[in-house]
């Protein structure tokens, strides 16, 4: 194969991947309201709370607020087994778009995030893993604002082994 041919191939490959990437980006940007199909890999693979939040909800001012209430552990603030710690999130806010739960000292802090349609009402309950004594953070995005609150949880047996 001549040198020129090889070059053409490289260019072709390059354009294809670039255009697919552009399509993916466009579909995400054009339909912010739609519940997106892809898994936000960047957010889940970030190793600090800040990175995870940046990847997940973008930059927005955090309005720390009493409007968000959540419980971790049973009884709250203490968990015997870190492998399944109950969490419950409750809020009086309207038009909640997204809720995220993060555990500060986990290897990958972001535990879960969910997108709500207006039909869903809180409280939302689930179980998460917590590696060691750590702050657990809940974030709600509603009407372009972020509401954040955290709880410190003590864990007897780490749950990320």
């Amino acid at each position, binding site marked *: 194969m001549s040198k020129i041919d090889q070059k053409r191939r490289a260019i072709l490959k390059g354009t294809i991947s670039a255009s697919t990437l552009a399509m993916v980006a466009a579909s995400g940007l054009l339909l912010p309201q739609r519940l997106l199909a892809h*898994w936000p890999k960047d957010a889940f693979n970030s190793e600090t709370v800040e990175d995870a939040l940046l990847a997940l909800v973008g930059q927005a001012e955090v309005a720390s607020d009493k409007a968000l209430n959540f419980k971790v552990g049973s009884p709250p603030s203490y968990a015997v087994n870190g492998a*399944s710690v109950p969490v419950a999130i409750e809020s009086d806010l309207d038009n909640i778009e997204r809720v995220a739960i993060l555990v500060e000292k986990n290897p990958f802090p972001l*535990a879960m995030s969910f997108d709500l349609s207006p039909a869903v009402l809180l409280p939302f309950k*689930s179980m998460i893993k*917590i590696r060691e004594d750590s702050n657990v953070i809940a974030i709600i995005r509603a009407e372009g604002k972020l509401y954040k609150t955290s709880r410190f949880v003590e864990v007897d047996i780490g749950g990320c*082994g």
Partner: protein
Amino acid sequence: MGITAKDRIRAKLKKGNTSVRLLLAHPMHTGRAKNKQDELIPAEFIQDIRCWRNEEEVLTIKCGTATARNPYFSFQLAGGESNDLIAIRWVDNLGAKGLTETRVK
């Protein structure tokens, strides 16, 4: 750990709203734990859970590895009538899929 249990879902009318409880049967391996032979267990965890009520998509949950084994979720849907169809689909990082559905009681 082998999984023999099935996904479970319950939906009930409570004070005019639909209360949904969901228990999925999944090992949720993080990719960090080791088995008895000291080998790493590869990551295997649910990434995406979606919930429909009568063909209308109402909720998307994205899970990381820090979601507990056999994930449990509970939430409320505004309004609803008995016999509404609540359907859940999930996909894990290896592409395994599940569908479970129930009628509101």
